[in-house]
């Protein structure tokens, strides 16, 4: 077994991707100027959030997000042992490295943490209510950003109002505002998250001390919410399916294009009533991405109606078969309470029960944020950001800077400031900008590089692993433990008996044919009774969980989406196998043991 992962400096660019560094910020790539630091660190690929090679602009969001995470640990709450998480991009893939607080500083950070985090815990509900207001207002402001094209001449009222500024100014400042909003959004994202996880980890630690063998998922189950905003998009699809059947218009959802379906619905009162219900649900709940939400290319329901309509069509079939689509909310609540009260009962003393109640209570207080922020930030707000960027892309396309709208994502975020100035200056001067002569070829080359990077297989980790992985957020958020690190080190060198190990994320044991899915575009390939094998799953995949028998993911821990949803649906899940999609092929018969966290390839 190797004792370290490859150095980031040993990793070569894949053939055809030379010069890939040009796609990303200079500070986000491994650099020789700080080689000692980078070579000695432990860097793991964040496949939970960024499984695929990043385009330049999406990479900018990645940088903003991770910097914001660190800021709260390091500068706001002074989490005693943990600074932030450093970030790099290698061959297009996101790598992270937890930064510990210097040993000597830990103690002096404690009183600050007690005071600052203590304030948040003590005022959680009020602050969370405020948060919802803040984030909704921010999304509203982003939605109102105006990226309309530069006019041939300014409107007369610009003259008569004495505005003294014009559309070029507006275009430049609007882009700056969008960038600012992205930063603010991510500031908001981490306002609560690390604290939420800290409270949960504390409850987790107490349960493990009281019951050394308690399954992780039992602890998660005691805390997890049932009426979670993340389930609302899927709940709305089900309601719409039921409405279609109850108002006898279900025959209009027969697989035609969304336009055809809408045309048929528009012909009578019942159909129009259905559309009105759809519109009510769509904002905001169908601002829902088919992926993690971190890629502009992830399909968003509201812009890809064939996705939600496909799910509704499937649900209509089930409604007509008499299948009860409702999540058994009451049963889930009862089960959650049963689990908590039975463990509580098994504690040894009233003192312990009091401590248990306190920690469980705090965890349940923080969990709505932990579960719901994902919808507001990664799905809703990001949907708006990608939409606005496409409006900007249309402007650049019209001006001949790029060939396709989505080419706008092939610019780095800071580079676009210069590009827009070039566009503005050409418009202002009335002379040709340089862009149209320069960028189309450059973008084409970047596409070629990016396509090459997409086919590259990122190693799970780089550099020198720590002796034990103790950094609490790394364990919690990314499911990285000493065990998973040593499993990664082992693989490839010796055993390949066809078995994989990961987190026992949801209990049960099943066998069945595998269906390996790399992205949301392949969801329609999944057939009833198959076992889903994917890098990770996303909230908008909810409807597939009614079809499959179990889930295996490459990345993620006990709190990953796949883990949460499979527990909800009563399906076995093994998460964080690292090599699931690499070692398993579609059609192979596999056994998923969600009790022990092992996946065995039986035949195929």
């Amino acid at each position, binding site marked *: 077994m190797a004792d370290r992962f490859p150095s980031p400096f040993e990793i070569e660019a894949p053939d055809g991707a030379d010069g890939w560094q040009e796609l990303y910020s200079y500070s986000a790539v491994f650099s020789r100027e700080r080689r000692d630091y980078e070579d000695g660190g432990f860097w793991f690929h964040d496949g939970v959030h960024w499984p695929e090679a990043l385009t330049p602009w999406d990479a900018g969001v990645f940088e903003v997000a991770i910097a914001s995470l660190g800021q709260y640990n390091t500068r706001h709450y002074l*989490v*005693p*042992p*943990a600074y932030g998480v450093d970030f790099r991009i290698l061959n297009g893939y996101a790598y992270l490295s937890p930064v510990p607080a210097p040993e000597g500083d*830990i103690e002096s950070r*404690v009183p600050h*943490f*007690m005071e600052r*985090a*203590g304030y948040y*815990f003590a005022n959680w509900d009020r602050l969370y209510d405020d948060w919802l207001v803040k984030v909704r207002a921010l999304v509203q402001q982003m939605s109102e950003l105006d990226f309309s094209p530069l006019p041939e001449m300014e409107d007369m009222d610009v003259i008569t109002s004495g505005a003294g500024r014009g559309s070029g100014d507006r275009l430049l400042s609007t882009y700056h505002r969008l960038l600012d909003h992205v930063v603010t959004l991510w500031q908001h994202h981490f306002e609560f998250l690390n604290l939420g996880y*800290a*409270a949960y*980890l*504390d409850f*987790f*630690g*107490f349960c*493990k*001390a*009281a*019951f*050394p*063998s*308690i*399954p992780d*998922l*039992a602890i998660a*189950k005691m805390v997890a919410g049932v009426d979670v905003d993340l389930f609302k998009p899927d709940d709305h699809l089900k309601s719409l399916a039921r409405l279609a059947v109850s108002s006898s218009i279900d025959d209009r959802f027969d697989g035609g294009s969304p336009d055809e379906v809408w045309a048929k619905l528009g012909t009578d009162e019942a159909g129009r009533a259905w559309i009105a219900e759809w519109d009510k649900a769509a904002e905001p709940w169908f601002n829902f991405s088919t992926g993690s939400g971190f890629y502009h290319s992830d399909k968003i329901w509201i812009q890809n109606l064939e996705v939600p309509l496909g799910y509704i069509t499937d649900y209509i079939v089930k409604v007509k078969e008499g299948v009860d689509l409702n999540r058994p909310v009451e049963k889930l609540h009862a089960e959650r309470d*049963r*689990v908590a009260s*039975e*463990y509580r009962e*098994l*504690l*040894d*003393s009233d*003192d*312990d029960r*009091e*401590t248990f109640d*306190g*920690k469980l209570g*705090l965890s349940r207080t923080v969990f709505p944020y932990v579960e719901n922020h994902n919808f507001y930030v990664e799905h809703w707000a990001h949907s708006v950001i990608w939409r606005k960027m496409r409006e900007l892309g249309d402007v650049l396309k019209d001006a001949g800077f790029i060939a396709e709208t989505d080419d706008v994502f092939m610019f780095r975020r800071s580079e676009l400031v210069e590009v827009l100035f070039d566009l503005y200056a050409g418009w202002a001067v009335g002379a040709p900008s340089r862009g149209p002569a320069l960028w189309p070829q450059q973008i084409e080359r970047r596409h070629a590089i990016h396509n090459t990077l997409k086919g590259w297989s990122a190693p799970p980790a780089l550099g020198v692993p720590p002796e*034990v*992985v*103790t*950094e*609490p957020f790394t*364990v919690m958020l990314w499911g990285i*433990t*000493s065990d998973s690190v040593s499993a990664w080190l082992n693989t490839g060198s010796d055993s390949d008996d066809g078995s994989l190990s990961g987190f*026992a994320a949801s*209990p049960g*044991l099943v066998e069945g044919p595998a269906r390996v899915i790399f992205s949301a575009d392949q969801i329609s390939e999944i057939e009833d009774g198959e076992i889903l094998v994917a890098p990770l799953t996303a909230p908008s995949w909810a409807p597939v969980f009614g079809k499959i028998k179990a889930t295996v993911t490459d990345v993620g821990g006990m709190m990953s989406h796949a883990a949460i949803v499979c527990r909800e649906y009563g399906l076995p899940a093994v998460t964080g196998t690292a090599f699931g999609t690499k070692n398993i092929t579609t059609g192979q018969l596999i056994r998923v043991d969600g*009790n*022990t966290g092992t996946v065995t390839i039986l035949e195929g």
Partner: protein
Amino acid sequence: MTECPSVLPFGNLAAEFHPQVGGKCASLGVMIQAGLPVPPGFAITTHAFAEAGEASGLMPRISELLAQTDITDSAALEAAAAQAREMVTSWKLLDEHQNLLDQNYAELCELVGIPDVPVAVRSSATSEDSPDASFAGEHDTYLWVCGIDNVRQKVRECWASLFTERAIVYRAEMGYPHDEVDMAVAVQKMVKPRSAGVAFTLDPTNGDRSGICIDAAWGFGEGVVSGDVTPDNFLVDKVMWSINRRTISPKTHAHLLVASDNGAHPTVGRVELPAEQVHAPSLTDEEIVAVARLARTAEKHYGSPQDIEWAVDEDLPPGENVVLLQARPETVWSKKHHAVSGKKDPMASIVDTLVNPLSARKGAATG
């Protein structure tokens, strides 16, 4: 008060009958009524014993014989005890009691669908298992008794086991008169165990009350109990019912039924196992959880951690085949108080968790 029949199924054992059926039968009755799946059977009351003894007219002679024996003289004791037992073995059940016995045995055969069903015939002394007198194991048990003639014979032998040397000495020491002894007998369907073993309603490695720890091996549980076989080990969570630990041990041999040469009933013997059984789990996942649920039911019923013996009966259909053979209180961990260390102040506790994450203090909880 309802009159107690002299022979009655365990399931019909009302609490008021307990004095007439002895500790073992009473406990079987309680367990059945608590919904615990113990193998079916019936009790023969002390009343049947007393009337048979009275009818024989031999009790005064036994009393006199023992009174004259110097129990410190082992040769004399052995001879007197043997003579007393021979006399008791000659006793006959009164007709009405014998009819009831025959009828109950026939009904048992019918219930399990096996003619001459093999049964265990066990002594159930009235003082046995009482808090101040530990008679457990003082009297005899006969396994694999088949057919009504043999059952009748073994019932008499159980009675006679009141006069083993050990029992006589024990009574003498405790100051119990020999002519006031009582004996009830339990007749219980003999389990034909495909697998058997023990279970604790806590994890004996660390006292974790949320775990049910199961030791299991092929065949009879004797190998597990005596430590003669390395059993499979499973740990089941008693809230989630997930199997959290699973150790499959090489089980090179087992205690199994073996045919006797002389055409007598089979006996239990130590047998080498074929290769395919050595490394195979001795319980299916469903059975593991069924054993755990059984143990948990016993724990809840008795209100304290239990140490049980169980078996998977080949004669019974899946889903009903896991049976409870014995339940007694677990005594090692139950008496220890192990409060969870940890800071009660929530913020102090969170700091502690962050500074000393669980992954860095592995084993701390098991110390």
